[in-house]
């Protein structure tokens, strides 16, 4: 079989979706089959993404593995897929995380297991679709369709207040994406095509760019999320089942970041420059304000959710710092570092937040509480678990040697080039991040086990250990040797920086 001509991108979308639907056909009665089948599907999808990585040409400028057919010819809507150095790492992150959530659900989900597995597998396919779609309508379809399985995951397997959370989640994100649709339609009227790459090239006046930027901003800022449109996230996380939280934090937030890189920045570069200072300000508020808010959370999931928002502040900071640097220095050299740092931060946060939510899940499965005060002294009964969580907590605090350090480090280095005070404010995360993460760790893990339930906790089993070990491995690997990830994205990021440094106003 010739692997070179496989439609890998389509397979990455449809294999998990069809697999997911098949689990429904297998049905809840054959629980074991459902589990094994979904596991195999998730592994195969992951292997496909690995294959994609091996066949990907790091030095190639432009989209690779392109697939292009007419879908709705009368509107020139195409089934148009392709992958570049920005999408590839996110796809691998998606397929990797899917394995984790499938295994994590193994013994935990007891109602409607086939529906559960189906939701996650379909979600994976749709998320891959978002990352590879090059036709904006196709993108929009994947983007909105993604909400449905997530809505179901929180609504069916979620906590007691799940209805409020799902509606808030749905309305919040739907509200944003409607404006995106308007922007996409406007772009169609300009270019006569839904081709995203053509939109990126199309010249646009400043006013049009500003309106487009705002429309996209409403969609992506809610998703990533930026302050002040972040309040849906803590609620959604608290009510979501562990797997839902993992996908939400590890991948769905990255959709917002991806959107900025694929749409806002290249389509409206002049507006991005115009709004850069505002965006930088919002990012810094997210980093500091949310850091303080995270400090006082009493619910572990809420705390990690806030920590995610604060970490995403580095992503948006890294996206908009380059505009200032290019404007100030007239050279693109310094800008790349901020953008690549932001990409790294997205990937790394995927691993770390997934790990932390899984840790909370491990404890929740045993004690059915997410409140910090219900724990204390967990290390006495769960030493292996405590060791893993220590590593993840340190990674969350951005310790060098873990992946959590790399992105923050590069973004801070890069922001210093723009302004001392931006770097100063961003670097406060060193103190705040350590404070909220380790204070939580101290109260949950260290100390005497005062409650009897805590002292009788069972340590992690092989299944849980396997998941946490995988995550620990990648977090350390990318901390010690992040170079491979950067090699994948250099060409694409450089091209993006060159693109946004040119004005589109004629």
């Amino acid at each position: 079989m010739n692997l070179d001509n496989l439609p890998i991108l389509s397979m990455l979308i449809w294999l998990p979706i069809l697999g997911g639907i098949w689990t429904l056909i297998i049905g809840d009665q054959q629980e074991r089959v459902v589990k094994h089948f979904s596991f195999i599907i998730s592994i195969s999808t992951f292997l496909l993404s690995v294959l994609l990585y091996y066949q990907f040409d790091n030095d190639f400028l432009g989209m690779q593995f392109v697939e292009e057919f007419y879908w709705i010819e009368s509107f020139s809507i195409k089934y148009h897929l392709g992958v570049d150095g920005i999408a590839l790492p996110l796809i691998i992150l998606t397929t990797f995380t899917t394995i984790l959530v499938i295994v994590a659900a193994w013994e935990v989900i007891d109602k409607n297991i086939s529906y559960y597995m189906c939701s996650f597998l379909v979600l994976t396919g749709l998320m891959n679709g978002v990352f590879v779609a090059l036709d904006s309508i196709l993108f929009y379809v994947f983007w909105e369709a993604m909400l449905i399985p997530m809505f179901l995951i929180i609504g069916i397997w979620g906590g007691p207040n799940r209805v409020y959370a799902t509606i808030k989640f749905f309305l919040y994100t739907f509200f944003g994406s409607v404006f995106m649709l308007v922007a996409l339609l406007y772009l169609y009227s300009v270019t006569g095509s839904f081709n995203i790459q053509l939109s990126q090239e199309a010249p646009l006046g400043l006013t049009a760019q500003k309106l487009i930027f705002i429309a996209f901003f409403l969609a992506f800022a809610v998703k990533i999320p930026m302050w002040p449109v972040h309040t849906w996230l803590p609620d959604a996380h608290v009510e979501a089942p562990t797997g839902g939280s993992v996908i939400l934090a590890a991948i769905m937030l990255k959709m917002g970041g991806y959107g900025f890189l694929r749409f806002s920045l290249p389509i409206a570069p002049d507006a991005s420059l115009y709004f850069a200072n505002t965006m930088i300000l919002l990012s810094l508020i997210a980093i500091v304000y949310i850091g303080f808010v995270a400090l006082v959370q009493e619910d572990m999931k809420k705390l990690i959710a806030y920590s995610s928002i604060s970490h995403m502040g580095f992503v948006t900071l890294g996206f908009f710092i380059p505009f200032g640097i290019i404007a100030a220095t007239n050279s693109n050299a310094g800008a790349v570092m901020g953008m690549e740092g932001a990409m790294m931060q997205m990937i790394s946060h995927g691993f770390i937040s997934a790990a932390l939510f899984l840790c909370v899940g491990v404890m929740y499965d045993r004690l059915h509480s997410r409140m910090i005060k219900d724990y204390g002294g967990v290390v006495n009964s769960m030493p292996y678990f405590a060791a893993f969580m220590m590593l993840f907590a340190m990674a969350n605090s951005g310790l060098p040697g873990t992946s959590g350090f790399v992105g923050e480090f590069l973004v801070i280095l890069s922001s210093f080039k723009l302004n001392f005070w931006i770097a100063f404010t961003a670097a406060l995360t060193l103190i705040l991040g350590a404070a909220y993460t380790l204070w939580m760790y101290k109260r949950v893990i260290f100390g005497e086990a005062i409650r009897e339930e805590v002292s009788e906790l069972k340590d992690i089993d092989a299944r849980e250990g396997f998941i946490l070990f995988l995550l620990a491995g990648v977090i350390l690997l990318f901390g010690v040797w992040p170079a491979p990830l950067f090699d994948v994205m250099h060409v694409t990021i450089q091209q993006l920086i060159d693109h946004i440094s040119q004005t589109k106003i004629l």
Partner: protein
Amino acid sequence: MFNHMETIYLSIVLAPLLGSLVAGLFGNSIGRAGAHWVTIIGVAISSLLSMIVYKHHVINSAPDYNEAVYTWLTSGGIDFQIGFLIDPLSATMMVVVSFVSWMIHIYTIGYMHDDPGYQRFFSYISLFTFAMLMLVMSNNFLQLFFGWEAVGLVSYLLIGFWYKKESAIFANLKAFIVNRVGDFGFLLGIAAILMYFNTLDYIDVFNNLEQHKDTTITIINGESWSVMTVICLSLFIGAMGKSAQVPLHVWLPDSMEGPTPISALIHAATMVTAGIFMVSRMSPLFELSVTTLNFILVIGSITALFMGLLGLVQNDIKRVVAYSTLSQLGYMTVALGASAYAAAMFHLVTHAFFKALLFLAAGAVIIVMHHEQDMRKMGGLFKYMPITSITCLVGTLALIGFPGTSGFFSKDIIIEAVHHSTLPASNFAYYAVLSGVFVTALYSFRLFFMTFFGKENMNRETWKNLHEAPAVVTTPLLVLAVPSLLLGLFLVEPLLTGNYFGSAIYVSPEHDVLSKISAEYHGVFYFITHAFLYPPVYLAFLGIFVAWLCYIKYPDLPGKFVNRIEFIHQILINKYGFDKFNQIVFASGARKIGSFLSQFGDTKIIDGLIVNGSAKSIRVFSNIIRNIQSGYLYHYAFAVIIGLLSLLAIFVHGLPH
């Protein structure tokens, strides 16, 4: 030859890492003995190889080694690399770190003998050795920062080693966060270096200093700062955190909650001196900022004197030694400020040996006293523990700078250097370090007399079981006593006259105080006798005498004296109020800000007003609209007729203008 040396450098860092991983991951299967053997062998390899490196680079003066091991990542045209710079400075640190660590590994067998976390402890201290070696061997700021934070991590893990103790897990969190405050400054310094030099490689930065000597940066509107000052101040803030300088010193006394071997290894001999090492390593940068040097002098002298004073009122044996560490770190910092980097490094080395010795001796006492640390419940231990007592005496004499001991040479050179310095802050610093000599002698001999002499104040149970510590404990004490006593005699000459550090340390000619001292140097014995012409020696003797008076001759004297100066005593007991201030302003302050932002900002404004507010207004609006869609056919028919009539009216009369 070089390939061969490269293997050695790599083995030096990897051997302890491997030991740590084996002991940590497979601790249960290899057992307690397995864990201590594998880590001790790892560190022993590291230590012996470090000696080879030392011989190669310091004694045989081989050329410096500066190469990358691998590229961490490339971004924005800059290669971030991991690599080694081996010169006399790093070679010296490597020997000190790996050797002290080796001794402490051995000591730990005895000290942690009954502890359930035995394997974990060995894993941690080996991991620490790895991180510290990465720090000192680095050839770039990235790896320096990695080592810097990694030693902080291990310090955090070890202070909280007894994780059930509330005070220990409070102390480790405090240590980590205070260190992070320093690291915050450090990171900004690194960012500034990258911005101006476009590299994080030490040598590349040093070679391009000329370009940015006079560059300025605007930080606050209209105020332009020298870039060098901004860089050096930021880096020094990092050093203040790690090397516990006022006001970032607060974590070090609390770190004594950890087991004693790590107080010796991490919180006395090695990690806390990382800041001193870093500034020495960066001497070409610091020489370009006189502002920073003055700042360093002030901070160092405040730490040297005022932290020493706190040692006078502590009754916990480990805390006395901890405050003495703070004070000695202050001495080293003062030397840095006076541009006597070599003297700071000299004191760092001698201090590493004698302070490790003092901590281990204190630890030996603590084991025998069944984990009692209050000196008021000790006394008269000399006859039960002669080896511990005598080695402790050696450490104490070195600490107070008794003529001939290693500490004498290093401290005397520092005091002389400050004396010769012409910086504005040097006057204040000189008097501070001079008074510090008296204070040091007083609290050191207070400790020595209260512990080993005088009335036996322990309870009967303990008293019956008094005995000398086991051989695994006393052997490291004896081994460490040798350099504590003699090292100065051997090092003083190459250091003052032999250009010991080669090109690793740079001092600009106008700051070169050490050359003035070396001009007056005429051999070791002359140096010792010459010291009797100056006050420090007499101040030390006076300190011993006063201690003898107060704690041997008239034991009720201190009590009476304290009553006279109750106010000052209270200030000292409260440690100048730093802890209280931090607790109220920073710890509770941050929580209050957090609660405010969470409850007011997120819940009330964003969710209450905007999100749920819009939801509510939609509901209000839709309630009105809903009334129209009643579902009754006659309502709709009525609406249709009204609409039709309106449209007709418009057609006939046109739209109203």
